[in-house]
């Protein structure tokens, strides 16, 4: 691997960057304050093919690879982290498992609306009493004639409040422990499925994060994803993939923060000179650029591993990319605020938002602690 982008990846990068700078930049600060879901932009992005980047053309997607997905998510997140997450979830957390584990009928039915954003995707694993410990989930699904009857509550679900297609996990057989978890494709208008509380978040505030409540929800039998008991495998496999684009979000947010900090350091004066002349400021900028560069290489490398299928399981590479990049983003955005001084603490400048947006990266889709466990397990086998 030589880390160079291919021709089509470079073009994709240019188009997504120019889209983000023109269309996303003006709304990003507004939706951060209002929490309003950016439907307009999501629809426009669907037209460009960004909602189904990794989905084959025959299902309405753009048929690019995972490095390309990372490039796109980085460019979107550089300008608007909320939009980056929404697009990432639709691609890797929802379209990907359907593509990978769905039947032909399921793919034909659900992938086209996901790609066109006629219906947006969301994924429900987490529950009030089951976060890092997925197997502690309490939701259950019982087969009765042609339907599974689903009961339980999912919490913290990105896109939850606005999505039309949900991939949800529940126990079909509690006795089998994690081998008894199954995955379901659930439509928004399913009887017995309602939305609960909307979360007020610290960052990525426009992502319609919402509780999902299932009370004797009737899911058609054919909406089981994979086989009964495949849920845990589907979940882990999907999280490996989505770690690539959480890493890409981190790189994008940080790149945005670095560029802001560079610009500001060349305008702001203190003690009679530009702050960019101070060695400590230069030192911080150099550290930030180095950290971002390293994270970007790790993310590309994880994407490359996925695309080439080497090594066949790339949990370690994906975990390293996500863990490193998330950690890096919190540090880099903190430094960006520092370079802005007091102004960085106000809503007048993007770095304040980027700093808040970065924190979630260390938490979702596996906390940093869980990632370290994954990495150490591979090394200490």
């Amino acid at each position, binding site marked *: 691997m030589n880390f160079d982008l*291919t*021709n*089509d990846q*470079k*073009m*994709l990068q*240019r*188009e997504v960057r*120019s*889209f983000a700078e023109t269309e996303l930049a003006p709304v990003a600060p507004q939706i951060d304050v209002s929490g309003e879901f950016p439907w307009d932009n999501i629809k426009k992005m669907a*037209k*460009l*093919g*960004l909602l189904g*980047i990794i989905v084959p*053309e025959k299902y309405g997607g*753009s*048929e*690019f690879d995972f490095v390309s997905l990372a490039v796109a998510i980085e460019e979107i997140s550089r300008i608007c982290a909320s939009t980056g997450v929404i697009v990432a979830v639709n691609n890797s957390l929802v379209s990907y498992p359907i593509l990978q584990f769905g039947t032909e009928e399921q793919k034909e039915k659900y992938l086209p609306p996901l790609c066109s954003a006629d219906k947006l995707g969301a994924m429900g694993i987490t529950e009030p009493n089951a976060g890092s410990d997925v197997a502690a989930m309490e939701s259950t699904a019982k087969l009765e004639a042609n339907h599974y009857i689903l009961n339980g509550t999912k919490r913290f679900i990105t896109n939850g409040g606005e999505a039309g297609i949900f991939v949800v996990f529940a126990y079909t057989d509690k006795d089998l422990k994690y081998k008894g978890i199954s995955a379901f494709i659930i439509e928004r208008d399913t009887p017995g499925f309602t939305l609960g509380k909307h979360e007020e978040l610290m960052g990525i505030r426009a992502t319609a994060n919402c509780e999902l409540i299932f009370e004797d929800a009737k899911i058609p039998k054919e909406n089981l994803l994979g086989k009964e008991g495949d849920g845990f495998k589907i979940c882990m496999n999907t999280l490996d993939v989505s770690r690539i684009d959480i890493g890409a979000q981190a790189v994008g947010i940080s790149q945005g923060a670095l560029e802001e900090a560079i610009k500001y350091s060349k305008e702001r004066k203190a003690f009679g000179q530009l702050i960019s002349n101070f060695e400590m400021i230069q030192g911080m900028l150099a550290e930030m650029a180095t950290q971002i560069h390293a994270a970007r290489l790790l993310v590309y490398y994880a994407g490359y591993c996925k695309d080439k299928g080497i090594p066949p399981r790339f949990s370690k590479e994906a975990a390293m990319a996500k863990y490193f990049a998330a950690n890096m983003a919190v540090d880099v955005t903190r430094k960006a605020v520092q370079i802005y001084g007091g102004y960085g603490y106000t809503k007048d400048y993007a770095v304040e938002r980027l700093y808040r947006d970065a924190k979630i990266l260390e938490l979702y889709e596996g906390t940093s602690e869980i990632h370290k466990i994954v990495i150490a397990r591979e090394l200490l086998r």
Partner: protein
Amino acid sequence: MDIIVCIKRVPQTAEAKVEIESSGKDIVKDRLTFDMNESDMYALEEAVLLKEKFGGTIIAISLSCSDAEDTLRIALAKGADTAIRIKAEDFDELDGYKTAQLLSAVIKDIHFDVIFTGCIATDDAYSQIGATLAELLGIPHATLLTNIEVIDSISHVHRELEGGLQEHIEISIPALFTIQTGINVPRYASLIAIRRAAGKEIKLVGQNEISKDQLLLNTQIEELFIPPVAKQVKIITGSPGEVSKELAGIIREKGLI
């Protein structure tokens, strides 16, 4: 309607630090990023809009070095059907006139109804390629278009004049138009179009196809320099009354009103 769009790849200098090369005749380019000239993007979009209305084909042409193939591929992704690169590396030094000659040498053998160029290149700002090319091809032209409508082989165009005036003229096609920015809203290329464009071949034309003999170079760059900046900042302090009095004095003294 068959349309030709001339496209240039230019350095993005808005936020970059521009330095002069040691030859004194060019800028240092290795740390700059390059992209399609701004008004060319509008020209391309205008071509795509016409094609959507009337059918036909769009050919994007660029006289440039091989790096510019990226830019031509962008044009393909945004709606051009084919792309031609005239190999700049084959033709030594270039100026506006020589560029127009090379473009016309290629275009004269192609069927077209309309040629679009940008109204100005943001790097050398010659603004003469369009008009010169039209003359060399013996077709009418209009510059600085802000609107175009084609009805029965007659194009109705609006030109932007100084002072906010617009001129409306009618020109029969084939004709050449140079396009002003803002005439439309250029589209983004979809990912599928990008993937298709990435695989397309770009036709190359070089010294084997065009003889160098008759090409004329009319201008030569003597020197490129960054003009010295004259600092004229004066900060006036005092009470509002004193400040306004002094300010008024300065304005009167400099003849600014």
